[in-house]
C-alpha cells in the first residue's frame, strides 16, 4: 500500500510550503487522477494515521478526483476510457489529457 508513502511525501511538501510561517494548517487540497494508481480511500486512511504529530494534525484533507480523459492528439476527439485507445478517424494512438495527477493543489493556513 503505497498510499502511506504518498502521505509522507504530502506532509513533507506541506511542511516545506508552510516554512517559517507562524501558522497552523487548516486544510490540505490535493488532486488525484483516476489513472494515477492511487486509491483515494486508502489515501484518506493513511492520512488519518500519519498526520498525528505533524503540521497536518488538525488539517482536513480534501481530494479532488480527476477522471481519466483520453483524446486524439491530432483531431482532439475524445476517446472514452475502456474503448480501444486509438482514434477511429485519424488512427493515431490516444493521449491521456488528464487523469494521472498526484498534485498538492493548495493549503489553507490559519493565521492569527
Amino acid at each position: 500500500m503505497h498510499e502511506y508513502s504518498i502521505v509522507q511525501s504530502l506532509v513533507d511538501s506541506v511542511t516545506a510550503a508552510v516554512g517559517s510561517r507562524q501558522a497552523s494548517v487548516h486544510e490540505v487540497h490535493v488532486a488525484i487522477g483516476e489513472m494515477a494508481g492511487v486509491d483515494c480511500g486508502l489515501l484518506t486512511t493513511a492520512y488519518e494515521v500519519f498526520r498525528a504529530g505533524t503540521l497536518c494534525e488538525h488539517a482536513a484533507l480534501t481530494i479532488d478526483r480527476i477522471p481519466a480523459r483520453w483524446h486524439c492528439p491530432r483531431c482532439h476527439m475524445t476517446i472514452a476510457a475502456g474503448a480501444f485507445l486509438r482514434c477511429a478517424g485519424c488512427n493515431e494512438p490516444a493521449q491521456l489529457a488528464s487523469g494521472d495527477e498526484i498534485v498538492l493543489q493548495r493549503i489553507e493556513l490559519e493565521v492569527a
Partner: protein
Amino acid sequence: MCTDNRSDDVSVVPIELQTRILARNDGTAAHNREHLRGRGIFTINLMGSPGSGKTAVLEATAHAFHGGAKLAAIAGDLATENDAMRLVRAGIRSRAIKTGQACHLDAEMVHHELHHLDLNGVEYLFIENVGNLVCPAVYDLGQDVNAVALSVTEGEDKPLKYPTMFAKADVVLLTKTDLLPHLHVDLTVIYQALARVMPDPVVIPLASQQPGGVEGWIEWLKQRRGVLQAAS
C-alpha cells in the same frame, strides 16, 4: 490573495501550490536517469505480478547476451535476495533491495544501490521491481522504459484490471507462451484487452525456458538502446 475571516483574531489564508507530491522522488529519478544515460546505459524498469516470469526473462536475457557481461540488475523483493542471487548465477552483476513491507521500489532506493554496483562496461541495467501490478507504476526510478511481464497463465482480462500499470508500459512481455498448448487461453482476447488500456501496445511473446525464446525481446532492447544512443 484573498482571506477568509473565521473569527476576530484568526484568518484562513490559502496558498496556491500546484506541486507534484512525489516531486522529491521525481528529482532523484531524474538524477539517476542523467547519471545512467551519461554512461550510455539503457535502463529498464521491469514490473509484473509475482510469478509472471520476470527473473526467468532476465536469466534468458543473460544467456542471449552470452553471459551477461554487458548487463546489470537491481532486484527488489519484500523479504529475500533470491532473485538477485539467481541473476548473479546467470552472470549478471546484481544488487538486491529487500523492501520489507514496502510494495514498490522508489528512486532513492535505486540511487543508493547504484553507488554499490560496478557499472563499467554495462550497456543495459534492469531494475526488477517488486512483484505487484499497482504500486510500482506510481514511482519513477530513472528508467528509460517500462516493461511489464504478463504471463499467459494470469487471465486474459488482467490488463483491464490494472489499467494504470499497462498504460505506463512501453512494452509488454507476454511470458510462458510455451505453456499455451496446455491452456484454454485466447491470445486475441489478451491483445484486445491491452488495446483498451495502452494507446500503442507493443507486445513481445516470450518463452524464456526455450532456446531462442527471448529473441524478439533482445532485438527490441538493442533497437531501443540504439535510438537512445543516436539521440544523445
